[in-house]
């Protein structure tokens, strides 16, 4: 599935909820179901520091696609981490670099991606893109 399709799927899923509470309950569920990053990978160098919650991000290249796994110590943050992993994982570096994140706005979670929220998510997206650049270079050489 392309990034765009996954994003549209998410927008549809979130459109079903009638209020914020259902939406948050769903995010909490998503957070709980995120395949955990290997504990051995939860090292300092995989840690993205937000002042409020922490995010760990690991990536690897497999068959030309970038695989992301991630975690957070806060469950709502982890729910958004799960959404981002679902959108960006198993995609080519080019697709990841070309993608935007305006769908987050459309599903009504924009406030969590504010640079002042200090939850590590903005830095997480940046790190995903940086990893994609690194793999892109690796694939070319």
């Amino acid at each position: 599935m392309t990034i765009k399709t996954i994003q549209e799927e998410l927008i549809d899923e979130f459109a079903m909820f009638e209020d914020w509470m259902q939406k948050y309950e769903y995010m909490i569920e998503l957070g709980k179901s995120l395949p955990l990053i290997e504990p051995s990978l939860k090292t300092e160098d995989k840690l993205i520091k937000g002042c409020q919650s922490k995010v760990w991000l690991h990536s690897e290249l497999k068959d030309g696609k970038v695989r992301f796994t991630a975690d957070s110590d806060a469950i709502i943050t982890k729910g958004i981490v799960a959404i981002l992993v679902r959108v960006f994982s198993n995609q080519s570096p080019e697709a990841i670099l070309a993608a935007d994140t305006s769908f987050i706005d459309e599903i009504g979670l924009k406030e969590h991606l504010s640079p002042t929220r200090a939850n590590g998510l903005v830095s997480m997206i940046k790190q995903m893109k940086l990893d994609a650049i690194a793999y892109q270079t690796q694939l070319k050489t």
Partner: protein
Amino acid sequence: MALDVQKIRADFPILQRQVNGHPLVYLDNAATSQKPQVVIDAIVDYYSNYNANIHRGVHSLSQEATDVYEAARNKIQQHFGIQHAHEVIFTAGTTHGINLIASGFSSFLKKGNEIIVSALEHHSNIVPWQMLCERTGATLQVIPMKEDGTLDLSAYISLLSEKTKLVFVNHISNALGTINPIETIIQKAHEVGAAVLIDGAQACSHIKPDLAALDVDFYVTSAHKMCGPTGVGMLYGKEVWLKKLPPYQGGGEMIKEVSFEKTTYADLPHKFEAGTPNISGGIAFGAAIDYLNNIGFDAIEAHEKGLLEYATEQLLQIEGLRIYGTGVKKTSVISFNIEGIHPYDIGTIVDKLGIAVRTGHHCAQPIMDFYKIPGTVRASFAFYNTKEEVDRLVAAVSKAKQMLT
């Protein structure tokens, strides 16, 4: 005398608003307080009716503005029990006051001297002392804290020696609400000849310190935590100290005569007030002090004590909830966590329910490290909060717990 909280709430326009579809419950007073209409009016009145630069013009407007600004200084003087008006320095806030003192002490300190700070400090306020130590070769000592969030006084006493030149402690901790025994801290420091600077940022909205009785050398606070505007505060310094300290910034107002060979500095307080100050801010700070005194600190303390006791009791009904900082002497601040739940998650859910609390490390990372937690949820109450708002907090936290587990 009991306080008429509904009447008081009507003084605060912001308390009438809705957030996320719910009436706002503002419990982040330790970060900044809300402003009553009289304070807002004081700012508008200055700009609408007598805006002029102060201390320099001969024209009537300038004279009027100067009089009101200086009257605000006198209000601060009287409020804090300060002997001379020129011992009150207007600053941009607590942080500015601390930096002013730290910078001034760099001309007195040398290698081998020691500065003592406490483990309960706002961490940004540890930085000026670290910078001072780097500049002078002095060393920084830390008074450790105990499990209940109070300072280890016997450790403090053993840190003191004739090497100690300055002690810096907050009057009340912003993360936990602990009231520190500053009387003892000041007295013991004076026994070894050290000066004491107290950070009153968290104290002055809850209590009315009598600085003369405390015999403290320096005391700093911010107007915005006591119903005044942001970007203005006060530094109190004993006259002898303020005369000894070199000026902090050069500029207009702080000079007597200037030539390229030599400049002589203005008398106190102007020596430390370079440039055009925050005139409307100073004036509104005065209005805030009047407002608080009209309500009365006895009534404020009694009301907040009631809220603290009620909120503590109600929150502790929630299973797995732990309160940090259980020292007996504390103000109306409750810092807590629920077992297995990240404070950020609780803060996010309760915000959706219209409740403003703070989550995170509250700029007190050393305290969080001490308890080995990423942060806490902090609810801090003011005299305009009500028991009904406590009920809404408790209901929202219970809801968050149910959603998050």
